C-alpha cells in the first residue's frame, strides 16, 4: 500500500472500540498518526476525545475504561489486547503522556528537581548527577529560563505556563516516539496558550517525534497541527490535512464549528451557531447519524443509516451521507 521507504505510522488504529462505564462506548473509529506528524483531535465535552488519549496510551484501565475491539498498532506492533505489563514496556521510552489538568498533577510538596529525578530513574536508572544534568537539559528544551531556580522550586512557586512546561519536560523524559497531550492549554491564558502550542511544535520538529493534541479549540489546533481529526459523540466524523479541513470542511459538524468561531465571523453579525446540544452518551445506541438531530443537511436517510467514513479529498475522510452537498454549500 505505502512505499517501502516510508516508516510505518506511529499509530494506526482500525475499527478501534473502547468504553467506560455502562453507556459510553467510543468507536469503531480509525486513526492514523504518521511518523513525525502533529495531529490535533478536536471535540466538545463528552465527544470521547479524552478517552481517545487514554486508549492510545494504554491508560484506559487506570480510569476504569477498557479497549473492546479493533486493531491498534504502535510503530507496526499490535497492542490491542496487550496486558498492563506489555503496555508499560511499550510506553517506556516510547510514549509520553500529558494528562488533562496536568497543571495540578505535579506533587505540591516536592521540588521540581526531585520530581524530575524520580521520573528519570523510572525510565532507566542513572546516577543522581546524570539525572540532574538530564533534568536541566529537558527544562532548557522547553525554554525555561533560570533552570537551577526552577529545579529548586515547589510547583506553587511557578506560574501556570511554567508548570505546563515542566509537565512537557516530564513527558519528554523517555525521548518518546509519540507524545499525547490532553487539553495542554485549556487552563492557560490566551497569550500563554499560543506560546505553549508553538513550543510543542518546535520540540516536535526538533525531535522528530509524533504528537497528538486533544482540544476543544479547533482554531488553536489548526495553528500548529498538520492533521485535524474531528470527533463528535464518540465517533470520528472528519479527518484530513489541516488546510483542507479548514478550507473545505466536508462534515456539517466541522462546518458548524468553523461558523461558530467569532474570530472568523464579521464583527457584530450573528454566528451561524449549531442548534441544540451534543447527543448524550445514553442515546448513542439509536440508529442513524449522531449529528442528525442538529444538522441542517439531514434527511430521512440520516436517521436510519450510520454513515461510514468516505474519502472526500486526498487524505480526507468524512462520515456524512451528504458530504458532497456540504462541500458545495
Amino acid at each position, binding site marked *: 500500500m505505502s512505499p517501502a521507504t516510508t516508516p510505518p505510522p506511529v499509530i494506526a488504529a482500525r475499527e478501534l472500540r473502547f468504553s467506560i462505564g455502562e453507556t459510553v462506548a467510543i468507536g469503531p473509529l480509525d486513526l492514523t498518526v504518521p511518523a513525525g506528524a502533529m495531529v490535533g483531535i478536536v471535540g*466538545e*465535552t463528552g465527544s470521547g476525545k479524552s478517552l481517545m488519549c487514554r486508549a492510545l496510551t494504554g491508560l484506559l484501565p487506570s480510569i476504569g475504561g477498557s479497549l473492546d475491539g479493533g486493531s491498534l498498532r504502535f510503530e507496526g506492533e499490535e497492542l490491542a489486547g496487550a496486558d498492563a505489563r506489555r503496555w508499560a514496556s511499550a510506553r517506556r521510552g516510547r510514549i509520553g503522556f500529558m494528562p488533562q489538568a496536568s497543571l495540578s498533577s505535579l506533587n505540591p510538596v516536592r521540588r521540581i528537581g526531585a520530581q524530575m529525578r524520580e521520573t528519570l530513574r523510572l525510565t532507566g536508572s542513572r546516577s543522581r548527577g546524570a539525572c540532574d544534568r538530564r533534568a536541566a537539559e529537558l527544562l532548557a528544551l522547553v*525554554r*525555561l*529560563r*533560570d533552570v537551577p531556580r526552577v529545579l529548586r522550586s515547589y510547583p506553587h512557586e511557578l*506560574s*501556570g*505556563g*511554567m508548570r505546563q*512546561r515542566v509537565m512537557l519536560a516530564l513527558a519528554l523524559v523517555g525521548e518518546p516516539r509519540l507524545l499525547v497531550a490532553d487539553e495542554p492549554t485549556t487552563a492557560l*491564558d*490566551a*497569550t*500563554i*496558550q*499560543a*506560546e505553549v502550542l*508553538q*513550543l510543542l*511544535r*518546535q520540540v516536535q*520538529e526538533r525531535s522528530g517525534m509524533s504528537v497528538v493534541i486533544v482540544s*476543544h*479549540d*479547533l*482554531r*488553536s489546533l*489548526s*495553528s*500548529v*497541527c*498538520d492533521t485535524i481529526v474531528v470527533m463528535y459523540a464518540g465517533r470520528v466524523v472528519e479527518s484530513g490535512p*489541516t*488546510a483542507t479541513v*479548514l*478550507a473545505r470542511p466536508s462534515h456539517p459538524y466541522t462546518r*458548524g*464549528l468553523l*461558523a*461558530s*468561531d*467569532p*474570530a*472568523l*465571523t464579521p*464583527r*457584530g453579525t*450573528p*454566528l*451561524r*451557531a*449549531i*442548534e441544540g*446540544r*451534543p447527543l448524550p452518551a445514553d442515546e448513542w445506541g439509536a440508529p442513524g447519524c449522531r449529528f442528525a438531530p442538529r444538522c441542517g443537511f439531514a434527511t430521512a436517510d440520516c436517521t436510519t443509516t450510520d454513515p461510514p467514513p468516505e474519502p472526500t479529498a486526498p487524505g480526507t475522510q468524512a462520515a456524512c451521507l451528504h458530504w458532497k452537498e456540504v462541500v458545495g454549500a
Partner: protein
Amino acid sequence: MSEQRSIALDAREVTVSYARGAPAIAGVSLAIPAGAAVGIVGESGSGKSTLARVLVGERAPTAGEARVFGRRWSEVGRRDRERRAVQMVFQDPYGALNPRMTPLETVAEAVEVVRGQPRRAALAAAEELLDHVGLGGAVVTRRPRSLSGGQRQRVVIARALACEPEVLVADEPTSALDVSVQAQILNLLLRLRRERELTLVLISHDIAVVEHLTDEVVVMLNGGVVESGPVERVLTDPHEPYTRRLVDAFHMRATPPAVRTDSPIEEQR
C-alpha cells in the same frame, strides 16, 4: 436627567485591596456610556473580575468611587432602581442557580420581586422570558442539575432580563461552554443588545469573543488598565507590548492555516 444618564457606569481612581498582598486593582478609572458595548480583557489575576464587581456595586472600592447613572453606589439602596438596572451574569451558571428551583420558578421569583406581580402573572411572564432566550417545553420545569451548561446560562440571562436591566455585565459568560453552545449564547447577547438597547460590559480572557460583541475594549494587566480604545484600533494597532502579545495570540488563532515555526518563542521566566 439625560445628561446624568449618559454615563451608565463610572469608576474613578478605584483601588481594591484584599487583606494581603498587592491591591487587586489600583487607581482604575473607567466610564461606560449608556448604550455602549465595552469589553474588558486580561489574563487571570489582572483584576478584571474585581473591576466588574466594583462596576455593579457588589464590591466597595478601598479607595476611589464607583457610580451608577451618576449616583454613588454607596448611596444606592437595596431596592433602588439603579440596583435593579444593573444585572450581572457569571461564568459558572450552575453556582448562580438554586438547585431546587426549576427555570420557570427561578425566573418567576425574580418577576414577582421586581414587578410585584402575583404568582400566576409572574409565571406567564417567566415563560415568555425563557422563550425569549430560547428555552421552552419540558426544559423549563426541570432542575438545574439536569440542564446543560448552555441551558443554565440561558436561565441566568432570563432571570437578569426579568429585572428589566439597562446594563448587563457578563463575566466570562461562555468560558465554561462548548464552542457550538458558546455561539448560541453570543448570538443571544448580540440580539438582546440590539433589541433592548442594553448597555453591555463583557469581561473575557478571549479577545475573539470581545472583538465580536463589543465596540470598545479595555485591556487590563496587573490590576491596572494598560490600554483602551475602539476594538478595531486596538486589534490593528496595539500600543502596548502586552496588548500586542494578546493581539498576536488572537491572530495566530484567526489566521488559517499555516504552521508557524518561524516565530521565536519567548523564554518563560
